[in-house]
């Protein structure tokens, strides 16, 4: 079937609109930090022993049912009957930012769907489509975490790499809508690559949270020692390091089995297409390395003396391996996955 060119153009326009909306959302998240009459979040006050609004901790730390418990007992309820106990964003800038994020995500999803219809296939056949897909997944994770864990403070920090990544994708890596080479014509593309996209979106979100965690815990330590901390200003808007650590760990706990499944699905597909389930192709090797490093992270986090900052650094190394696999291997190393790459 021929490629539907006008629908492909519509997809391009939608993705461009997505980047613009995300960029505006990013500015609004930043404005929320800068202008909103902000509650000081738990992060830097907790360690110094100052009063912490209980609602903030609840808001950042736990899910809905805990709140209903709180509401059922009157003494706690007074402390929690605070505007920020709401699941939904509060304040002009944050509402605007979140609205723009959701609008951008809608455009993003539509861009992917129209692209798929234009090409009559799952639209993850090349690097342009792949990046568009996993950035979309990262934004979905952001939106879910925002509502579920009230992690609205992540908006700015997640949007920065997303806008940057999508911008590169649209300019440098743009590939017109087209068909697939025979090696990719398999239903396994919908299984293997989708799993990878979901996992990468979660891994990216986890890494952004971990970066914030490392900054926050450094800042907490420095302030506790009476030293200046350059990041203290912006980290006022972020919850305690332990809360960040847990949020990041949650996303990795989710991502790791999905990644494991994706690697396995890839092995089954490789067996269908090339006659072996594992052949140490560079892409396979690096997905293995990524898997091992994230496994290290999970082990480190369960080991005394490694949890905390050290585990955080291991997780960031894991994301480094992941991104090298997604981008570096496609550009610098040739292998059986080369069709996924550039030109």
């Amino acid at each position, binding site marked *: 079937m021929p490629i539907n060119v006008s629908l492909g153009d519509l997809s391009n326009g939608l993705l461009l609109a997505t980047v613009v909306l995300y960029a505006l959302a990013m500015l609004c998240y930043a404005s929320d930090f800068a202008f909103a009459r902000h509650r000081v979040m738990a992060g830097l006050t907790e360690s110094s022993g100052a009063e912490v609004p209980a609602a903030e901790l609840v808001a950042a730390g736990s899910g809905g049912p805990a709140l*209903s418990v709180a509401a059922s007992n009157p003494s706690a309820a007074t402390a929690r009957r605070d505007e920020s106990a709401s699941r939904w964003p509060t304040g002009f800038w944050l509402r605007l930012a979140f609205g723009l994020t959701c609008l951008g995500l809608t455009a993003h999803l539509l861009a992917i769907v129209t692209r798929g219809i234009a090409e009559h296939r799952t639209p993850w056949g090349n690097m342009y489509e792949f990046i568009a897909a996993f950035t979309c997944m990262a934004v979905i994770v952001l939106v879910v975490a925002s509502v579920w864990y009230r992690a609205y403070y992540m908006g700015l920090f997640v949007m920065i790499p997303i806008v940057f990544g999508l911008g590169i994708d649209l300019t440098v890596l743009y590939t017109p809508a087209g*068909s697939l080479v*025979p*090696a990719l014509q398999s239903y396994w593309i919908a299984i293997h690559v989708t799993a990878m996209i979901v996992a990468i979106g979660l891994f990216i979100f986890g890494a952004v949270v971990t970066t914030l965690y490392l900054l926050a815990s450094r800042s907490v330590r420095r302030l506790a020692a009476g030293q200046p901390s350059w990041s203290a200003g912006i980290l006022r808007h972020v919850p305690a390091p332990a809360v960040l650590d847990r949020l990041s760990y949650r996303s990795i706990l989710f991502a790791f089995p999905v990644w494991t499944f994706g690697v396995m699905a890839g092995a089954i597909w490789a067996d269908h297409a090339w006659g072996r389930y594992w052949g140490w192709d560079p892409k396979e090797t690096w997905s293995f*390395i990524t898997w091992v490093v994230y496994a*290290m992270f999970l082990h480190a986090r*369960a*080991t005394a003396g490694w*949890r905390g900052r050290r585990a955080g650094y291991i997780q960031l190394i894991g994301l480094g391996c992941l991104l090298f696999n997604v981008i570096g291997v496609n550009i610098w190393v040739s292998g059986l996955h080369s069709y996924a790459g550039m030109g």
Partner: protein
Amino acid sequence: MTATEDNVSTPEATAPGRLAGLGPVGWLRWGWRQLTSMRTALILLFLLALASVPGSVLPQQGIDPAAVSQYFQSHPSLAPILNRLSLFNVFSAPWFAAIYLLLFASLAGCVLPRTVRLLGSARQQPPRAPTNLARLPASAGYRTETGPAQALRQAKALLTARRFRISEGDGWVSAEKGYLREVGNLLFHIALLALLFSVGLGGLFGYKANRLLIVGQGFANTPTALDVFRPGRLVGPGNLAPFAINLHGFSAKYVSSGPELDQPMSYDASLTYSDRPGGPVRHYQLQVNHPLVVDGVSVYLIGHGYAPIFKVTDGTGAVRWDGPVPFVPVDQTTLTSEGVIKVPDAKPGQLGFAGVFLPSAIDAGGRLASAFPAALNPRVSLVGFTGNLGMNSGQAQSVYQLETTGLRQLPMQPQPLAAGQSMKLPDGLGTVTYVGYQQWVSLAITYDPGQLPALISGIAALAGLILSFLIRRRRVFVRAAEGADGSTEVWLGGLARSDAAGGFETEFGELAELLRAELSATTTQPFVPERGELATPDASTPAANDETPDTASVSASREGE
């Protein structure tokens, strides 16, 4: 066999004076404990990741031998050193094997004792409730008019209904849940061991082979009929499935316009096969992603190309060659292909030709080039040689290369031949005719008995992983006693034994509220969710002090992996 640093910091492990007096058994035990410690496992994991890197950066013998020999040519001084370090064979190198075998030994050393302990604890009861439940990471207090015994009965019923394992004593109820977490964790690690064994099984009893097949030809699955045959260590020639395959046609479709010009759309090989000599002949359309499976052996379409047909008549007028010669694509987008024809029987002199096949020949500025991978305008250009081809020297020769040292190039103007055109050779050496072309496919034949075990191991590993991530092991305690004013004071306390990701607070909050409603009690100390970070089971919590050493070591071992 615990995974925390506890064992590293135990006195006998750190004090050098004690080490000296350990004796051989003590040393062995010390070494085994080091090997199975979590820190060692972490370091081995890191080494495994690091050791894989050169395998993706440097060309590998098992994946792309041609790239390796090219690397040897372009780095003549460096390559032999790298080769000595097995860096062109990373994944079969002794040092790579050393890392993963140590890792799996460490894994086995950790997992097996834990399995034994888990089996032993299958019927174990939760420990008695700590005295002061308010000191637990999660706690709540109530006052109710219900009597203490009745309150405990109701609490027990509530916890039993939620499928907790219960033990009780004077004034307390202990409940524990989530034993499947350890089961999942162990399943994951044991499945990884099984996966390694499956891979080994495939390496011993499986084989890989390649065969190039021109349309119209056939072959039987025997070692001599295969171009490349890599048997596993325990595979003999008689172990090959005795099927036979004939190739009847091949078609490739390409995008003929637009930005994706030249991109292939489909490959389709039409073949017949029988699973044994004299067996029924069946038809199969072999495509990429659609392998043919015969007798447990899979046949894959992995490549294709052109085989121009030549007819070579020598100086005596005898036809010395008449048939297709497979040419190897040197440009994958336009399928410009190269190949050689060797005619050792030609008289008066042996003849050799090096040729270029252009599927869609065009004139690119005075030079011939192919514009498209399909054979729209096929042309062949030949350079002829005469002299001793060296085919009787006993040395193995590639059929795709012509060793031109010792040969004399024939003084001819290279001219592109269309189908049916001939070229007369100088000095009365004969003529060569380009008759037409045929297509060839390259087939990969693999047999891997480790495949199904590997798949099952993989699924088991994933199931174990999900189980251990989803399930929390947690304990809930209830104490009830008569208070000073005659009403009953009820305390609820809980801790997650392995709940680094949170979520226990939610469950505890629900339990606290249910218990309050059940006892129609008033809250004296509310449950404050954020009190305990629940990041790790903390050894200093009162509950941990109450534990028997046995369960304590279970919780301290590699949980949360």
